[in-house]
């Protein structure tokens, strides 16, 4: 058995928390600033990506004969879920390699190790905030009348999405340190997850195509309930279908707790292999 104890005077818990938050925000701002520093469009890139995908997916919908109402309806249907989806997949794809990317720090300096995947999610959150501005404008201009009470569900949906992304990202990060395949596969993996989630199509449209057994399997995917929730609130102006949202809760919690636990245990030994 081994133990490692540091005793320090004059360091109160509140100071410790302030140090932790300083590091968190400095690292996030490092990643955001350095990403856009030598680009012309800068943070506009984070808005462009979901906007372009929105156009592509709307075109896809009309090509495959999935048409609900007019073009604006289709634009709204895809964009309202694309923005949270981009946050989700960006979070995973940034949290995954975050440990390796910060290897030089972890190898040398004792820092709270959970920091790095969390920073990955935070930078994805920055892109999300930029897109959210556009989304707000679109909902006001093109969407159904906004239901203020339904809007209260948004924080709940965001928390669930964040926990899920963090959990998955931490699992990829933990194993990726030992085997790079996990990180190399993560982009591909989120791509497949995109098709397995109601983004190009709606849940209703999917259910029309699936047998009863497959519908149950489909609902195991925790992003289904969360993304449909976003769609209800933002595109339809109604509260999320609570039964549907409830199906996402167990998987979300499992992913989060599993990811956090694996990461906490394995991260002790990251410095040995980085």
């Amino acid at each position: 058995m081994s133990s490692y104890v540091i005793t320090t005077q004059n360091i109160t818990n509140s100071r410790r928390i302030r140090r932790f938050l300083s590091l968190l925000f400095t690292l996030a701002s490092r990643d955001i600033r350095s990403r856009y520093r030598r680009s012309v469009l800068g943070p506009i890139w984070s808005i462009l990506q979901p906007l372009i995908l929105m156009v592509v997916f709307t075109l896809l919908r009309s090509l495959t004969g999935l048409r609900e109402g007019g073009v604006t309806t289709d634009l709204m249907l895809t964009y309202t879920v694309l923005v949270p989806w981009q946050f989700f997949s960006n979070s995973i794809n940034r949290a995954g390699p975050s440990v390796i990317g910060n290897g030089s720090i972890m190898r040398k300096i004792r820092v709270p190790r959970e920091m790095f995947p969390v920073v990955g999610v935070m930078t994805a959150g920055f892109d999300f905030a930029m897109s959210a501005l556009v989304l707000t404008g679109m909902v006001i201009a093109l969407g159904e009348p906004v239901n203020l009470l339904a809007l209260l569900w948004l924080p709940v949906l965001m928390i669930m999405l964040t926990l899920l992304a963090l959990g998955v990202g931490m699992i990829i990060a933990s194993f990726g340190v030992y085997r790079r395949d996990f990180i190399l596969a993560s982009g591909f993996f989120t791509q497949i997850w995109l098709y397995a989630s109601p983004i190009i199509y709606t849940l209703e449209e999917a259910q029309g195509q699936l047998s009863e057994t497959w519908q149950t399997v489909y609902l195991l995917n925790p992003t289904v309930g969360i993304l449909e929730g976003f769609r209800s609130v933002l595109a339809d102006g109604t509260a999320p279908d609570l039964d549907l949202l409830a199906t996402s809760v167990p998987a979300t919690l499992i992913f989060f707790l599993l990811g956090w636990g694996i990461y906490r245990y394995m991260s002790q030994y990251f410095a040995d292999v980085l």
Partner: protein
Amino acid sequence: MSSSAIEVNNVWKRYGLPIPEGLRKPLNRLSGKIAMPDQWALQDVSFKVERGDALGIIGRNGAGKSTMLKVLAGVTPATRGTVRMHGTIFPMIELNAGINPELTGRENIYLLGTIMGFTTQEISDRYDVIADFTELEEWLEKPVWQYSSGMKARLGFGVAMNIDAQILLIDEVLAVGDLPFKKKCYNRLEALTNEGAAVVFVSHNIRQVERLCDHVIYLKKGEIILAGDSQTVCQEYNIRAVREYQETISEELSDGAVIRSSGEMELVRVETLDLTGRVTETFNPGDPFKIRICYDAHERIENPIIGANIMTSEMIKLTNFQIVPSMVEQPFYALEGEGVIEFTIPHMPFNPDCYTVGVTIRSENGRRIISGQSLATFCVEYDPDYATRLGLVHLDFSWDLNP
């Protein structure tokens, strides 16, 4: 306060995820080459460092020095044993860890500071001191990718040296930077120890350890084989290491021979001899010795400049000898065909270590005809009678003691 700054008790360390013995083999087979070494990087290491004390850790590559530092820094857990650290730790292990090239010097100071455990406010408070220390001035507003490596080092040191830590862990970092800046860092380190900081210093550079540390532990294959005051341990290390190292390094050094030639002549052999004319590669301090250069000149080379130099194994040029035309009595001399040039040095001035000999021959007007490094190696043996000799060279001296 009575407790030591650092207490290490029976620490064992094996790298990698701790996997139960029974699972180790099947997992190794399953995953092929996955790194699960069975070797102990540290074995039963115990020591204490008091406040205001500097401890040196010495040993050859792979002896466990850096592992010990990582365990002390808390970046990797010991497999067994306990580590107690009393005070804020400042790990000066690779100071540039975390520097981002896209950001400016100023932004990087904040970044490094927060990584080292400070709040944004605390860094703002001492920003001016840090900026001053780095001497980077207007460069601080430029992105770090434009910096030279020396400037990057200054950035790291600037932050590192101005943090009030009670425990400093230092790993060879003082090898970078120019001389005045290094001196500034040494002074700052000394001031910190005087204020009561405990220092752990890891280095290959035994002279640096001897200068900076009060106590030293000598690690070999993860075990402490000797611990005590710095002079005793460093001397013992010198005896063992010089001997051990002479065998390996003299081979390595002579393998490293590089010759550049215009083709007019060849160096057949370069060797070191004692005064009886016997070719040898080991000398005692103070012995007279000769360097002999055997050459074969394909063309007649008139009035050349003939030089030989001696370097340490760390490639520091200690001295050179030169024969220039004005030194030669007859107005005219030349190298032609096979011949020998000898330099005689009446007293070996170098302290125990291994050295290499290089040769350069130039034409009268300075054009290089042939030059080579590491053409011969010789070692100076450790001699207990000369145990008080420190540094690189020993000068003869006389003395006066006025009561």
